[in-house]
């Protein structure tokens, strides 16, 4: 994934828009690919998409904020998502969270000052068999303990 906070390469966004603007109902695809450019969807990007598709920015913003995997503010290079569903909770997700908070010095919704890690909750990852579980970007991790979590974080 590209580094956060880098300036938007608009040429890439226009390529994405060119690819999709003829097919109605492709807002989600556009948002997904646009987010891949620099890790989040800025106001500027949302406005360009709205303008190109001819729909109000308020609607594009509504869609972008409805799905938890879309970000409207800059995030870290690696997003840690801790499962907050019941099985993980019972199997000790709170301890995993506490370890991460202590190791990185951030709370859910925050990003480390060096821009490397963001921390957030996710609903069920479907990994209840190996609860407690988390994801870091596209990678999943299960059977977590305090030690294992520290190890995983240090490996990034």
């Amino acid at each position, binding site marked *: 994934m590209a580094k956060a906070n880098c300036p938007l390469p608009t040429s890439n966004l226009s390529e994405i828009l060119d690819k999709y603007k003829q097919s109605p109902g492709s807002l989600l695809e556009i948002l997904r690919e646009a987010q891949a450019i620099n890790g989040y969807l800025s*106001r*500027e990007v*949302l*406005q*360009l998409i*709205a*303008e190109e598709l001819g*729909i*109000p*920015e*308020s*609607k*594009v*913003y*509504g869609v972008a*904020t*409805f*799905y*938890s995997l879309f970000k*409207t503010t800059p995030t870290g290079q690696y997003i840690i998502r801790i499962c907050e569903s019941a099985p993980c909770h019972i199997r000790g997700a709170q301890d995993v969270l506490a370890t991460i908070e202590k190791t990185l010095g951030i709370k859910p919704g925050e990003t480390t000052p060096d821009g490397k890690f963001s921390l957030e909750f996710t609903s069920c990852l479907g990994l209840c068999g190996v609860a407690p579980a988390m994801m870091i970007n596209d990678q999943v991790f299960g059977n977590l303990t305090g030690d294992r979590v520290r190890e995983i974080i240090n490996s990034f």
Partner: protein
Amino acid sequence: MEMVKVTVDGQTVEVPKGSTILAAAKKAGIKIPTLCHHEDLNVNAMCRICVVEVVGARTLQAACSQPVSDGMVIITNSPAVRQARKMNLELLLSNHPQDCLNCVRNQRCELQTLADQLGVQQQRFGTKTRPEYPKDDSAAALVRDPDKCILCRRCVEVCHDVQSVGAIAPANRGIKTQILPAGGVDLNNVACVQCGQCTLVCPVGALYEQDHTERVWAALADPEKHVVVQTAPAIRVSIGEEFGMEPGQVTTGQLVAALRRLGFDRVFDTDFTADLTIIEEGHELIDRLNNGGVLPMITSCSPGWIKFIEHFYPEYLDHLSTCKSPQQMFGALAKTYYAEKAGLDPKDIYVVSIMPCTAKKFECGRPEMSSTGYPDVDAVLTTRELGKMLRQAGIVFSELPEEQYDEPFGITTGAGVIFGASGGVMEAALRTVYEVVTNETLPSVDFTAVRGIEGIKEAEVDLKGTKVKVAVANGLGNARKLMDLIKEGKADYQFIEIMCCPGGCIGGGGQPIPTTNEIRKKRIEAIYEADADLPLRKSHENPAVKTLYEEFLDKPLGEKSHQLLHTHYTKRNKYPQKSVG
């Protein structure tokens, strides 16, 4: 039309196929309670207050969205239905501030009324778990109070589908869902035109106008101030509704009496400057037609429409008539011509407008609207705010005698009155332009082709050889259609009237709640009734307007007019916070 038979609470009724359960019940004389449903908007089925039992169905059905089928048996009043409705309402209330006494919609709130109707007497589900949201009073005309919002989405529908503005939309998810301007910023930082149509459909106190009543009370109590009031054409056919009168009654005389009893020093009529607008705008049109000016010329009375074109079609601002709106012409003259005549210092004159409009509150604060160095108009009250002030003052509207407006700005014609309905400015202009251009008396003053609530109307007028093609649009969604035609070079009109709100000003965002299309039609009828009742029907026959030109303005489009009655417009961005698009 194919009809189907259904049974509602034991009564058999016949309704067109595809009707909702709600409509079938209405036909059977049963009023199913609703909350998110609005008769002029598409069905949302968000709130589940209207649930009913359908025999054979597994679950309760939402009456507002479920179509009937032949032979359907519906039960609207069973213990299960009553319990479900009440619980759905209680759940909504559990996230609603229990703050009715301090709410702008106290006693006029659909949620509160339902709570009473469905027998809610205690807060079963504890206190609010939803996050608290601050009030957004950034906009000149409107206030958003998301804490009160029940997420029915009526405002969203009216803003997007009727007005094609799209300033607000649902954002976020679950318990954090809110109706928000894009980016979650304040309303003032997005392209909201402040038409206030959202305030008409909001069932609760989540969207309403900026209050000007306190400053008007203060001015009325200030012995140094000479407080004059002007009433827009549409107020005389709607203010009665604030006091429980049936829609569609003309109460001009009572309105004047009520304002005099509130303590205004002079009670004037915006119809006077509506007549004046016709003289100026009519001559502007003739000038553009004769001298190759920018056509089509588009009317400029409606401040929501002005803000709309400034945001969404800024490259077409030279199509707008340069005439200020009648409200602003009135203010400019009150602080110059009238001040001179009455021997008053303009700084001591306080001008209040009674308007069917929220955007007028924005308009009066535009920096270019202060020809004397003071704002031309100091305060704008909506019809609703006037109703509130009259109730505060204990004035019993229905029992007031009919009184006359003061001179000179109280002398008006029927042409001024019809400004209040869609097509009215067009008709008034045609009455004058025809006679000025042809030097002949109109055989009939009624241009009925431009009347009515239809979204876009067209007509062609023969000015003794010169054919003028005109169009009239009401509601910004229809305005957008006309603007796109102009953009594509497909509009062969010479003159276009655009009113921001559906039906024109009688359906304005500051009008009594409810304002529905049915009510709009009744107010329109009343407007034409008031027109027909007046001895003078054409603006150029207004004797007070003639005197104004003789004593002060000299001639239409003259130097003084230019200085006081005409204005310029501002290019705005569709995305006010960014430089995109």
